[in-house]
């Protein structure tokens, strides 16, 4: 790693946010009038941070994630991702996206699903295979590469979806309620796995994680962004100072409960 003091330009790069959201507004035309999904939202995210967006339905948390990922465009304001407009970041393949449903391709085996982005990005066959093997190992599905998605449980399918999003090593991981459709037990296990993969030690992946669940947001994130509806805006940002790596003991610590309460109360105010 270059020495930041010897290389001033590197120092600047380190301090610049990886995502800078500047006075962003998003309105939709719906039938007669316009709906304001987001109103004048500003926020910045540092590289390697795990950010949870939480709020009631209609607060614009998914919209905000989609604007960052260039799945939609803001009506006003600007977004910079790694110093670029989101569109350029998308073309540079900086985003790995995980939706609530795993959206796997039925006609591809698990391994081929993980390799899909690599195929599109023109990687060679050996490189793809090596990468998919490593990714499947990472999510604990190394024995299921030749299975078809329908042969897996919901939790396993979502693991494949995460492996696919990480397969091309994107700088940013955008997750839109990825565990929302799972049962509570599977959900807690998946949260712990997600932290092992990209939340705890040595993580250089920046994660934006949209969720409805307060405990999930507090357990995973470095900062929880509490949003409120009509119009969608940021109500509060709660710093989560729980030590990492986080595990079951974290969930039982007094500080964890304090933070959950804090987030809950900010949500109530919103």
């Amino acid at each position, binding site marked *: 790693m270059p020495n930041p003091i010897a290389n001033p330009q590197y120092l600047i790069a380190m301090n610049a946010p990886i995502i800078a959201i500047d006075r962003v507004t998003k309105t939709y035309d719906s039938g007669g009038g316009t709906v304001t999904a987001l109103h004048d939202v500003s926020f910045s995210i540092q590289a390697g941070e795990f950010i949870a967006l939480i709020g009631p339905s209609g607060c614009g948390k998914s919209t905000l994630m989609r604007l960052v*990922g*260039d*799945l939609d465009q803001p009506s006003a304001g600007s977004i910079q991702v790694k110093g670029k407009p989101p569109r350029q970041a*998308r*073309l*540079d*393949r900086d*985003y*790995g*996206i995980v*939706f609530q*449903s795993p*959206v796997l*391709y*039925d*006609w*591809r085996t698990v391994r081929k699903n993980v390799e*899909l*982005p690599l*195929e*599109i*990005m023109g990687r060679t066959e050996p490189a793809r295979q090596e990468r998919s093997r*490593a990714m499947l*190992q*990472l*999510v*604990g*599905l*190394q*024995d*299921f590469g*030749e*299975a*078809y998605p*329908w*042969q*897996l*449980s919901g*939790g*396993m399918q979502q693991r494949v979806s995460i492996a696919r999003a990480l397969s*091309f090593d994107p700088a940013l991981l955008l997750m839109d309620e990825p565990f929302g459709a799972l049962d509570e037990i599977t959900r807690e*296990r998946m949260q712990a*796995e997600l932290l*092992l993969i990209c939340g705890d030690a040595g993580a250089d992946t920046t994660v934006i994680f949209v969720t409805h669940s307060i405990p999930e947001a507090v357990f995973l994130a470095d900062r929880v962004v509490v949003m409120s509806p009509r119009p969608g805006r940021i109500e509060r940002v709660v710093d989560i100072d729980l030590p990492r790596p986080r595990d079951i003991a974290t969930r039982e610590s007094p500080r964890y409960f304090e933070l959950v309460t804090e987030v809950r109360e900010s949500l109530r105010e919103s």
Partner: protein
Amino acid sequence: MKDEALLTNDERRTTKAASAPSSFFLGLSSSWLLPSLAFCLMIVLWEAVVRGFNVPLYLLPAPSGILGAFFQQPGYLLQIGLFTFGEALAGFAIGCGLGALVAAICVRFPLLAEGLVPFSVGSNAVPIVALSPLLGIWLGSISPASKIGVVAIMTFFPTLINVYRGLTSPSPDTLQLMRSYAARQRDIFLKLRLPAALPYLFNALKICASLSMIGAIVSEFFGGRQSALGVYIKSQAGLLRLRECWSGILMACILGIVFYLLIAAAERLVMPWHMSFRRER
């Protein structure tokens, strides 16, 4: 990597990976057992009714009589059958091929789809075979071209509609995923839309296999070569040679079923992953 398989044994047990269903033919035979039994029973009943009640020949010949007529000239029946089958196949290839092609163009140009698709759905209600005499005038009532034309028109619309539905079936999420990979249009079409459309395509091909035999034979009723199955069926009926007439119908049934089965077999080969072939979880 750093962590071991994070699955519980429970999870391993509930999923059957890798070991794909192996009892392909067994499953096939067991699902065919009942229908075959019902078919045999029907034939036996038919034979019994015709003999027991002395049904006159012009109303209904016995299956044994039909089979007798069939085996008097199986080679000839097969020959005229294959001639008609050839017309059906040519029309099928043209109609289904053009239908799939136009569907693909419709996906690229949504405005075209908006104009064409509702109209094509409506054309389902039109008895296209009624156009046969006209196509006879346009393309020659004796020539196979008029039969091929009828079949091509009959199979074009169902293929267009089904394939268009299939190509547009991927959910917004899957398309956005492709967008996030900065995928080219070509990749989106080849790696997403086309595989997603395969079940719809095969559905259309199965419908069109039956339609094309119907179209070819019925349009031969309005005129055609002496060596055609539809002409044979119609002329034998006119001569009241009803066993021979029925033996022609039997050949038409056999060819129709074989055509359908060939497509069903191709379907299994091309998309072994599909839902309808899954038996256990």
